[in-house]
């Protein structure tokens, strides 16, 4: 009786194992099927966490001369050689939920905000005052301690314009599109379309 029950159990086990093997072989398509659903707000949060994405940096050298007309007479001059760095990129914190449109089959469309200049700063090691003078016939004119600061501000404005004229924004936009496409592909998206928001 005990022997019969054991044989029955053994047969049952073998039958169950065979059924599992047959199911795996013919009805189960390989690895565990993971259904990926794209959660647009989650993608938005992930991209927004990148914040300001600087994608290009220009280094510009300029000679800046600033003359301050004094009241009532005279003038004070300063001449500087400045080296400035300009960083441009996109502000991903400005992405809106509607800028991310997930599609079927791991597709995603992303609309980027327009590129802008993120930072401009002077390299203090390479920025030098070459000349500073007051008109010789007005020696009583007091020096303006803020003149160098004004010249630096003027230099930043000039450098910014020079960078814009050199196409820093289009360069930054292209680089941002490339970087984000690579980022999203690495995150598992197969077809990534990156557009620029007007």
């Amino acid at each position: 009786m005990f022997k019969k029950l054991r044989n029955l159990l053994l047969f049952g086990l073998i039958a169950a194992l065979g059924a599992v093997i047959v199911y795996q072989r013919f009805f189960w398509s390989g690895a565990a099927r993971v259904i990926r659903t794209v959660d647009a707000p989650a993608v938005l949060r992930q991209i927004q966490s990148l914040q300001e994405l600087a994608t290009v940096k220009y280094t510009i050298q300029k000679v800046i001369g600033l003359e301050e007309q004094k009241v009532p007479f005279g003038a004070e001059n300063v001449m500087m050689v400045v080296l400035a760095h300009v960083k441009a990129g996109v502000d991903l914190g400005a992405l809106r939920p509607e800028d991310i449109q997930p599609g079927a089959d791991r597709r995603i469309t992303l609309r980027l905000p327009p590129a802008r200049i993120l930072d401009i700063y002077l390299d203090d090691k390479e920025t030098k005052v070459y000349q500073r003078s007051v008109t010789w016939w007005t020696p009583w004119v007091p020096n303006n301690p803020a003149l160098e600061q004004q010249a630096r501000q003027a230099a930043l404005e000039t450098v910014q314009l020079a960078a814009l004229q050199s196409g820093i924004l289009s360069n930054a936009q292209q680089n941002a599109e490339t970087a984000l496409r690579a980022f999203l592909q690495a995150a598992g998206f197969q077809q990534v379309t990156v557009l620029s928001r007007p």
Partner: protein
Amino acid sequence: MKLLRPVLWWLLAAGAVMVAALAWWRVRQADLFSAPLRVETFGGTNYIIQLTAATVGRVQTGYLVIVTARLENPNPFEVLLQRDWFVLTDESRDYFQPNTNGTQTAIIRIPPGGRLEREMFSYTVSGDSFKGWLALMAGHQRLIPIKSRQPYHPHLNDGEFVTFRRRDW
């Protein structure tokens, strides 16, 4: 020689008077330039603006005008000003928006009862804008002159700037 001496004295005195008159005129123009003005935003909030300098510079594509101003908030609450409100206009009624692409933020915040000592507004203009007056539009329908009607020919090279603290240029 004895006859020439009084003539010389008179000439010197006349020259001194002319220099003094010119100095007085320029000081007056400087006072007018930097007079504090109470203006209103489009929403009706008061604030005070005082021009401190106007800088003209040459860049590759034209001229750069940088207006430096002191902004004061007499209110017990924070005042937010949009940089776009500070439009530069010339005699031929061309309007120039301030550059907001770089270090200058689009929104200017003045804390309650506080002041911003050196707020800068920069504009890219053409050389034609210096043929007549230039004025800064601040607040609601307020024009603050920064340059006289007389034509100004800036003989500047690329990267050269000149700063004025008076109107008569």
